[in-house]
């Protein structure tokens, strides 16, 4: 029962804040509502018993990515873009397309609802004894070691790319 109440609270916060993100005129307000959505999704992760991912969500998304967004908003002028037209001309077509998409997804999920009700899975005794962080860490450093290393290379390339894209050109390059 408590689980259901928590789920609905977090889901309502996430969906309402997400709608606010895409409808606000001021980018700073959008960023604030994005933060609310990310916190609510972290709460959803907690109801799914993924404590490690909830922590990562708060630290990496809210503490890293969102702060990066706010920094960039600070660097570029906000005032002028508030008074511009906010929506594309094709917004009606976009809304119709999205309505068709959500109808398709919900119909598909509803039709396949029975396939989700698998017999309850009993976790292995060893896994039940270990904490969530321990399980994730073990999987990450044993079965998924190569993807993990590739992800670190991806981050390195992204850092170098971001620096190259946004640095000033030296006189020699011009």
């Amino acid at each position, binding site marked *: 029962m408590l689980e259901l109440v928590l789920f609905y609270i977090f889901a309502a916060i996430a969906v309402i804040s997400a709608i606010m993100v895409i409808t606000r005129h001021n980018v700073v307000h*959008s960023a604030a509502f994005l933060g609310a959505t990310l916190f609510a999704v972290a709460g959803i992760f907690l109801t799914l*018993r993924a404590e490690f991912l909830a922590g990562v969500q708060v630290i990496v998304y809210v503490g890293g990515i969102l702060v990066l967004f706010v920094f960039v908003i600070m660097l570029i002028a906000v005032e002028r873009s508030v008074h511009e037209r*906010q929506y*594309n001309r094709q917004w009606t077509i976009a809304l119709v397309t999205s309505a068709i998409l959500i109808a398709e997804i919900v119909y598909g*999920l509803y039709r396949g609802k029975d396939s989700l009700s698998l017999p309850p899975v009993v976790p292995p005794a060893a896994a039940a004894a270990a904490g969530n962080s321990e399980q994730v860490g073990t999987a990450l450093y044993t079965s998924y070691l190569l993807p993990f290393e590739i992800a670190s290379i991806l981050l390195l390339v992204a*850092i170098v790319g971001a620096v190259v894209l946004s640095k000033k050109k030296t006189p020699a390059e011009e």
Partner: protein
Amino acid sequence: MVTTFHYLLLAAALFTIGIIGVLTRRNIMIILMSIELMMNAVNINLIAFSNRLQQVTGQVFAIFVITVAAAEAAVGLGIVIAMFKNKETMNINEIDLMKW
């Protein structure tokens, strides 16, 4: 009783809101934020099934999705800054250098 179905519906709602944001807004910052919303929806799906099947594989993949989101945000915001230095705008309709 919260079922996997509930979580999948929530993820579908968040994903569609993200798509509406990408398709209708003109401000490039809000488009990038909408992409983050869509990545979050995918993470909810992955972790819902991780919980349903009692395997941590879904959570490991959610970590990779977060990694890709961080890389995407860094490069995307670098592009925004480079664009703003050249054209002084955040409006995507004014960025048409490669259109013909």
